[in-house]
C-alpha cells in the first residue's frame, strides 16, 4: 500500500506533505506529472496499482489536462495525455481512494476552472461578488477575470469582450483565503467564507484558495493554491492528519 503524490519539482508544499507522511510511517511514491505516462499502472475491481504497489491515497498537485507524456513522440502526446488523465481521474474516484481533493468528472474535465465552483456555491445559496459576462464595463474599477485565469487583467475592448463573453468583476483584494479541510487558515473569516469552506469540504475539496474582492466578497476558487512558506507547517500537519484519519478508517 502507498500514497502517491503527483507534484512538480518546485512544489515545496507537496514535498513537505510527502516528508510528513513518511515521518508517520506511510510509504509515499512521488511522481512528476510529466512522467505519469511512463508509470506502470493497473486498475480493476476498485484497485489501483502503480509499479505493482496498491495505491490507497492520492495528492494530485497538477493540472488535470497534462502534460503527462514527456517520453512520447510529439504526434502521440495529446492522445496519451487524454488517456493518462482518464486513468488517474478514475483512480481518484475509486471508493477505496483517499484524495485530499476528490475531483468529480466535471471538475476533472474542465480543469482548474473557477466557473464550476462559482456555480456550485451559487446553487448552494452562497452570495458571491457580482460578476457580469459579455457586457460593457459599468465602472472604471471593473477588471477582466478570464475563465482560464486566476488573476485579473485590463478590460478588453467592446467587440473582443463580446466575442470572449468576458467576465468582469470589481477590483480584487491582494489577500486570498486559504481553505484547508473545512477550515479557513488564511484571510477573513466571514460567515460566508466559513460556509464556503464547509461546502467545499462536503464536495471533497479539502485544499483551495479563494479570491475575494475589496469588499470581502468571494469572486472565485482556485484548487491549486501556492502555500506560502510561513504556512507550510500548519497546512502540512492538517493534511497529514487528514490522510491518517481516512486511511486508517479505510
Amino acid at each position, binding site marked *: 500500500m502507498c500514497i502517491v503524490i503527483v507534484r512538480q519539482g518546485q512544489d515545496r508544499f507537496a514535498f513537505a506533505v510527502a516528508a510528513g507522511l513518511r515521518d508517520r510511517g506511510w510509504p509515499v511514491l512521488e511522481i512528476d506529472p510529466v512522467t505519469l*505516462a511512463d508509470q*506502470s*499502472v*493497473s*486498475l*480493476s475491481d*476498485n484497485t489501483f496499482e502503480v509499479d505493482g504497489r496498491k495505491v490507497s491515497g492520492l495528492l494530485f498537485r497538477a493540472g488535470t489536462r497534462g502534460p503527462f*507524456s514527456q*517520453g*512520447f513522440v510529439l504526434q502521440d502526446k495529446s*492522445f*496519451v495525455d*487524454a*488517456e*493518462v*488523465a*482518464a*486513468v488517474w*481521474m*478514475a483512480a481518484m*474516484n*475509486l471508493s477505496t481512494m483517499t484524495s485530499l481533493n476528490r475531483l*468529480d*468528472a*466535471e471538475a*476533472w*474535465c*474542465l480543469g482548474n*476552472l473557477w*466557473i*464550476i465552483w*462559482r*456555480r456550485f456555491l*451559487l446553487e448552494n445559496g452562497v*452570495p*458571491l461578488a*457580482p*460578476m*457580469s*459576462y*459579455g*457586457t460593457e464595463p459599468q465602472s472604471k474599477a471593473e477588471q477582466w477575470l*478570464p*475563465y*482560464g485565469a486566476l488573476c485579473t487583467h485590463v478590460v478588453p475592448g467592446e*467587440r*473582443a469582450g*463580446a*466575442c*470572449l*463573453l*468576458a*467576465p468582469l468583476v470589481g477590483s480584487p483584494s491582494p489577500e486570498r483565503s486559504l481553505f484547508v479541510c473545512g477550515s479557513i487558515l488564511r484571510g477573513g473569516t466571514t460567515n460566508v467564507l466559513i460556509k464556503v469552506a464547509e461546502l467545499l469540504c462536503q464536495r471533497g475539496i479539502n485544499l483551495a484558495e479563494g479570491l475575494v474582492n475589496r469588499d470581502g466578497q468571494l469572486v472565485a476558487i482556485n484548487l491549486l493554491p501556492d502555500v506560502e512558506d510561513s504556512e507550510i507547517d500548519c497546512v502540512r500537519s492538517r493534511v497529514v492528519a487528514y490522510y491518517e484519519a481516512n486511511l486508517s478508517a479505510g
Partner: protein
Amino acid sequence: MKPICLLGNPEDKQLVYLAWLSGREGLAVVWLDEACLGSAWDLSFCDDPYRWTLKSATYEHVQTDIQGIFVRFDPHISASEVFEQSSPEELFVLSERRTGLQHWLSLVRQPVINRPWAGRENAAKPFQMQQLADAGMEVPRWVVTNESTRAQSFLSSCTNGAVVKSCSGLRPKVKMAGEWIIERLQSGSSPVILQEYVSGREVRVHVVGERSFPAEVNSRDVDYRFSEEPTGYALTSLPSQIGHACVRDAQRAGLTLAGFDFRVSNEDKWFCLEMNPVPSFLPYELATGLPIAKAVLRELGRG
C-alpha cells in the same frame, strides 16, 4: 409560442434536422452560431442575480423568452472574424468563448440538451463503467493496464476473447485483442482497457427524458463506427428493466439525451459498454423511424 435555441455549428446535420423538424412542428428557432458570437449575435449575462440577454440585428430575447436550448458544440470551430484566423490569440479566444458559453448553459433555467457538465465521466471510461455497474447495469469484465503480464493474464481468462479500447473519450477504433497488444505494451504504451468480448448483437438505446428508443446495429465489424461496409439499423425490443436502468442512469448523470451501447449475448443477457452524453441519433432515426428528434423537441418545449 416561445422559440427554441439551436447552439453550435449551423452546418451540423443533427442541428439542421432539428431545425427542419421544428419548422414542421410550428416551432420557431433562434440559431446561435458559435463562431459568430460577438459579430452576428451577442450574449450578455449575470449569474447573481440571474439574468441574460440575446441580441442580434433582428431579435432581442431575455431569460424568460425561450423554451429551451439544444447544443451541439463543434470540436473544430474557427475563431470569429474579430480575430485573425490562426493568430496566436485564436486558441485562447476559442477556449474562453467556449467556457463562457458552457457557464451560461449551466445557469440557464430552461431545459438544455445537454448541460455541459452532464455525463462528463464519458471522458474516463473506467470511471464510467464503474458508475454503470453501480447503477445496476451488467458491464463486461475489464482491466486497465499498460503491463504486459497483467494484460496476458486477463486475456487468458477471457474464453470469448477480449477487445482493446481507449480509456478516454477519444475515439480510436475498438479492436479484438491479440498478441499485437502484448507486443505493444512490452514496447511501452499508455494504458489501455481490455474488456471481455461478448458474442451476440449490438444495440444502441437512446434515452430522451423518460423515453428510450432501442435500435439494433448490424455490422460484421467489431467497431461499426469505423466499418467500411454499410452499417444496418433495425427496430428491436428492449427489456423494460434495461430501459428503466438507462433512464435512471441518464437522469443521475444530468442528461436529457443519452446514447447507451449494449452487447446482447446469445443467451439474451444485456451488457452495457458505455453511455454517450453527445449521441448522434440521426442515422438511427433515419433508418428506423424512431421519433428521437420529436422527443427532443418535446423535452425542449417543457421550458
